[in-house]
C-alpha cells in the first residue's frame, strides 16, 4: 500500500496528532509512568508521520506541497489553508525530531504535575508545527499566539528560581511585539478581503491594492518587529537569556530549537515574500543589527558564568547569521540561513539537553561549580565535545555548512559583511571551547563532581540522535539542500528581478 495516499491529509495529521495526544492525556489517569510512555509514543508517531513529508516531496507541486485549502469561516474570509515548501518542510521535521528528545530528557527531571507538563509540551508541538504549515495569515497568527501560552506556562510552572519573572517577561515582550503584526494582517485583510498568503502576495505583485505604497513600509515594520523580537535580533534579545535560564530543559530545547526559528521563518516567508521592495530598502540597517548581534552575542556569551545563559547568548549570535543570510539576498545566503536554522536547532537543542543533564546531577548551571568533568564522566564529555564542535562550525559537522554558505552570501552582498561575520566564527570557537575547557579539562576542582554518574540510558537516547544528525547533516547536506534550494530560489526570484543593487541603495 503506497503511503502516498496519505499525502492529501498528511499536514493535518502531522499538525494535530500531538494535540489529539494532549487531549487524550487529559482524560488519562494520573499514572506518571504511563503518561511518559504515552507522550513518547505520540511524539515518535508524529516524527514518523513527518518523515512522510520529505519522502513524498513531489518536486512538481509548486510553490507549495501537500496543500490543503478548505473554507473555515466565511466572514471574515478565513481558510484552513496549509502547505509547505522546502523551507518549512525541514523546520517541521526539526520540530518533530526534537520533541521526543524533550520527552526523553524530562523523564526523570519532572516529578511534580507530570500530566500537565506533557499536555503543555504536546500542545506546544502542535502550535509550533502549525506556524510552519499555515498559509493563511489568520491561521499563522493564531498558531503564532498559540505557542505563547504553553511556553509561558512551561517556564512559569516548571522552571527554576526566577521562573515567574522570566515567564511574564517572555509572554509580554513577545505578545506586545506580535500585536503590530496583527495590525498589519488586519490592514491587509481590510484592503484585500483575503487572508490567503498566496492571494495577497499576488495582489501585491500586481499592484492592485489601494493605499499600498504608502502603507507598505509600516506593514513591513509591523511584521518585522514581531519577528525581530522572536529571533531575537539585537537589541530585542534580552528576554531570551532570562527565559532560557529559568526554563526547564525541555522548554529550553524547544525554545531555542524551534521557537526562535519562527521569527526567522517569518522574516523569510512574509517580509521577503510580501514586501520585497521594503526588504531591499531596509536591508542595510537590518544587516547591521544582525552583525552586531553576531559579534555582541558572542562576546557577551564569552563572559557568562552561567552555562545556560552562555548558550542563550550563543543563540543570539547564531541567529544573527541567519538574519544576515536572509537579507543578503543571495542564493547562497538564503540556503545557508535555512541550513543554519536547522543546524542550530539540532546543535543548540543538544547543548541544552546536555546542560540539563548536568543540572539534574548538581542542580546548578554555574561553570565555576564544575571543572575536570572529563574524568568522572568521559562519555558525557565526549558527547559534549562533539556537539560543541558542531556548534563551533567544524567542517564535517552541520554548523560548518550553514555558516560557510551564509558567509559566502554575505561576502557576495558586500565584502565587509562577510569579513565581520567571519569573525563571529572565531568568537564562537572562543566562548564554546573556553567553556568546555573550564568545565571538562584539568583537575576535578570540586570533590563532589567526582561521584557524578555518567550518561544514563535515556540521556544517551536523548543526546546521541542529535550527534548523529549533526554528523549526517555535515557530510551529506545535499539531503536537506535538495529541497531547500528550489524553495529559496522561488523566494528570491522577485527580489532578483529588481535591478537595483542589493544593499547600500
Amino acid at each position, binding site marked *: 500500500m503506497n503511503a502516498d495516499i496519505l499525502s492529501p491529509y498528511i499536514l493535518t495529521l502531522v499538525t494535530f496528532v500531538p494535540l489529539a495526544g494532549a487531549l487524550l492525556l487529559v482524560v488519562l489517569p494520573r499514572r506518571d509512568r504511563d503518561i511518559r510512555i504515552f507522550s513518547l509514543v505520540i511524539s515518535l508517531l508524529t516524527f514518523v508521520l513527518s518523515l512522510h513529508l520529505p519522502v513524498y516531496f513531489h518536486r512538481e507541486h509548486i510553490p507549495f506541497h501537500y496543500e490543503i485549502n478548505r473554507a473555515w*469561516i466565511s466572514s471574515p474570509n478565513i481558510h484552513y489553508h496549509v502547505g509547505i515548501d522546502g523551507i518549512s518542510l525541514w523546520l517541521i521535521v526539526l520540530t518533530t525530531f526534537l520533541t521526543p528528545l524533550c520527552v526523553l530528557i524530562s523523564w526523570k527531571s519532572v516529578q511534580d504535575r507530570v500530566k500537565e507538563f506533557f499536555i503543555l509540551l504536546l500542545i506546544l508541538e502542535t502550535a509550533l508545527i502549525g506556524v510552519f504549515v499555515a498559509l493563511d495569515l489568520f491561521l499563522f497568527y493564531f498558531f503564532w499566539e498559540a505557542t505563547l501560552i504553553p511556553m509561558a506556562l512551561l517556564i512559569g*510552572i516548571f522552571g527554576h528560581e526566577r521562573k515567574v519573572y522570566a*515567564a511574564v517577561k517572555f509572554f*509580554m515582550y513577545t505578545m*506586545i511585539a506580535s500585536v503590530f503584526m*496583527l*495590525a498589519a494582517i488586519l*490592514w491587509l*485583510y481590510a484592503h484585500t478581503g483575503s487572508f490567503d498568503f498566496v492571494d495577497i502576495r499576488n495582489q501585491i505583485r500586481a499592484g492592485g491594492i489601494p493605499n499600498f505604497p504608502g502603507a507598505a513600509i509600516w506593514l513591513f515594520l509591523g511584521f518585522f518587529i514581531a519577528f525581530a523580537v522572536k529571533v531575537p535580533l539585537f537589541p530585542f534579545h534580552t528576554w531570551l537569556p532570562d527565559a532560557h535560564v529559568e526554563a526547564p530543559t525541555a522548554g529550553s530545547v524547544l525554545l531555542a530549537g524551534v521557537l526562535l526559528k519562527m521569527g526567522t521563518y517569518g522574516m523569510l516567508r512574509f517580509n521577503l515574500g510580501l514586501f520585497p521592495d521594503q526588504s531591499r530598502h531596509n536591508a542595510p540597517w537590518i544587516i547591521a543589527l544582525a552583525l552586531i548581534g553576531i559579534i555582541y552575542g558572542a562576546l557577551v556569551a564569552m563572559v557568562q558564568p552561567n552555562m545556560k545563559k552562555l548558550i542563550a547568548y550563543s543563540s543570539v549570535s547564531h541567529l544573527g547569521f541567519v538574519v544576515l543570510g536572509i537579507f543578503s539576498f543571495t542564493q547562497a545566503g538564503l540556503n545557508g540561513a535555512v541550513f543554519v536554522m536547522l543546524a542550530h536547532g539540532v546543535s543548540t537543542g543538544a547543548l541544552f539537553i546536555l546542560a540539563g543533564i548536568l543540572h539534574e546531577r548538581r542542580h546548578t548551571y554555574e561553570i565555576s561549580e564544575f571543572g575536570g568533568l572529563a574524568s568522572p564522566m568521559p562519555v558525557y564529555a565526549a558527547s559534549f565535545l562533539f556537539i560543541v564542535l558542531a556548534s563551533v562550525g567544524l567542517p564535517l559537522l552541520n554548523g560548518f555548512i550553514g555558516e560557510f554558505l551564509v558567509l559566502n552570501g554575505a561576502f557576495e552582498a558586500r565584502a565587509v559583511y562577510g569579513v565581520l561575520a567571519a569573525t563571529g566564527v572565531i568568537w564562537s570557537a572562543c566562548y564554546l571551547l573556553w567553556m568546555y575547557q573550564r568545565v571538562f579539562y584539568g583537575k576535578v576542582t570540586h570533590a563532589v563532581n567526582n561521584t557524578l554518574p555518567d550518561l544514563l540510558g535515556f540521556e544517551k537516547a536523548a543526546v546521541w540522535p542529535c550527534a548523529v544528525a549533526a554528523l549526517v547533516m555535515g557530510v551529506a547536506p545535499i539531503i536537506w539542500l535538495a529541497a531547500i534550494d528550489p524553495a529559496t530560489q522561488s523566494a528570491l526570484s522577485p527580489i532578483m528581478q529588481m535591478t537595483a543593487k542589493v544593499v547600500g541603495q
Partner: protein
Amino acid sequence: MTGPILAQATPQAVEYIRILPEIVLSLFGILIMLLDPLVDEQKSPRTLGLIGFAGTLAALGATWYMSYAPGLAFSSSVRIDGFSVFFHVLVIAIAAVMILSSFEYMSVQHIRAGEYYALILFGAVGMALMSSAIELVLIFIALEISSISTYILAGFRRYQASSIESSLKYFLLGSFATAFFLYGVALMFGATGSTNIDTISHFLQNNPVPLLVYVGTAMMFVGLGFKVAAAPLHIWTPDVYEGAPAPVVGFMSTAPKAAAFAVLLRVVFAINEPGHFWPIWVAAALSMTLGNLGALVQTNVKRLLAYSSIAHAGYLLVAFAMTSSRNSPNGIAAAMFYAAAYAAMNVGAFAVVSHFANAGEQYVTLEDYEGLGRTSPLLAAVLTIFLLSLIGIPMTGGFFAKFYVFSAALRANLIWLTLIGLVNSAIGAYYYLRIIVVMYMREPRKQVPVTPVPFGLGAALTVSLVATFYLGIFPNRVLQYAQRSAPDVLARHVTASPASAVQIPAIASEPALKPAP
C-alpha cells in the same frame, strides 16, 4: 371622530406578541414575589430560583416566538427586528446564567432570596425593552426599570457596609446620569418635534440639524455612557463592582451594558447627526487606556475586573466610530458580536469569582487565589479560559470580538484608533496574566477553603464556556446574524406618519422648527 384614533390606539393581538418576553418575565417576577412569603426560608433559594430560571427559559421561548412577528407595536414605540431579537436573547440568557450561578451564592451568604430573583427578572424586562424600544421616552422608562433593579441588587448583601455603599453610590450617580439622558430626550423633542427615533432620523435627514440636537445627543451620550462605563463617565465602576455581590456584578457588567449599547447603537446610527465621531473616538481611546492602566496595580479581583470592563467598553466603542454608511453595518455587527462574546466570558469569570469568594466574600484578593491551580484545578482551568478570552487569545470568543471590531475599524481607515486598541490589548494582557500566574505559579500563603462546585454553578459555567468556545471557533453563524440585523439600526425613511403616543398633533403639523443660527 374618536373611532379611528381609538382603533389606532387599541393594540392588536400581534403587538402583544412583540412584547411577549417582557410580559412573561414580569409574570414570573410577580409570581416569585407572591410566593416569597409562602415558601419556607430554608428551601426558598432553591424553589424561587428554579421558578426564576424557568421564567427565563420561558422568556427565551417567547423571544423565539416573537422573532416570527417582526414589526412595529404600540403606536410605533416598539420595533421588533433582528437587532432587538439578538439583544433579547442575549439579555435573557445572561439573566438565566446568572440565576443559575446564584443558587449556591445565596445560601452561602445567608441571603433571603425572594426579591433577588424577582429583581433579576424585572431588570431583564427593562433591559430587553431597551433594545426594542424606538421611542425615546419608552427607552427612558425601560432604562429606569433596569437601573432601579440593579441599584437594589447591588446592595443585596445588606450586612456588609461595602455593599450598601456601592448600592447607594450607584443609585445616586446613576440617577444623576439618567437625568442627563432625560434632559437630552427633552431637547431632542424640542428640536425635532418628536421622540420617536425613526421620526427624528427622518427629520434630520431632510432638514438642517438644529443646535439643540447636538446638545441633546451630547446629553444622551452622558446618560448612556455612564451605563456602559465609558470614560470619562466610568468613575463609579470600580467602587460599585467591588461592593456588590459577585453574581450581581456579573449581571451588571454584561446585561445592562449590552442593553445600553443597543440603545447607543440606535441613537448613534439611526439618528446619525454628524459630529459624533470625535467624542466617541476620544471616549474609546480613553476608556481603553484608563481601564487598562487602572487595572495594572489592582489586587482585588473584583476591582480588577471592573477596570477590565471599562477597557472592554472602550474596545466596543471603537465600533461606533465608523461614520460612513458603507462602514456602519460592519461596525454595528462587530459591536453586537462583541457584546455577546464579552457577556459570555464576563459572566463566567464572575461566576467563578463568586464561588471562590466564599461566605462574606472574604476571598477576593489576588493573594487568596494563590495555588488555586492545584487545589481546584478544574475551576482554575475554567477561569483561565475566561481570562484568556478577555485577553483575546485566538480560539476564544474574545479574540474574534476584538478581531471584528478592529478589522472593521481598519476598513474604515481608523488606523490610530486600531493601533491604540491593539497595544492596549497587549498591555492589558498583563493583569489577566497575573491572575493566571498567581493561580498556577505561586504556593498559597493562606488557607483558603475550597468547596465543591454545586450543580447550578456548574451549569452556568458550562454554558459560558461553551458560548466562549463556540464564538471562538465557529463565529460565523452569530456574526452573519449580526450582519443581517445591522441595517435595521441604520437611519431609514419613515413610511407612515407615526401616531406617536407623546406627539402632540398640533406641533407635528407645523413645519420644522427653524434651525438655530
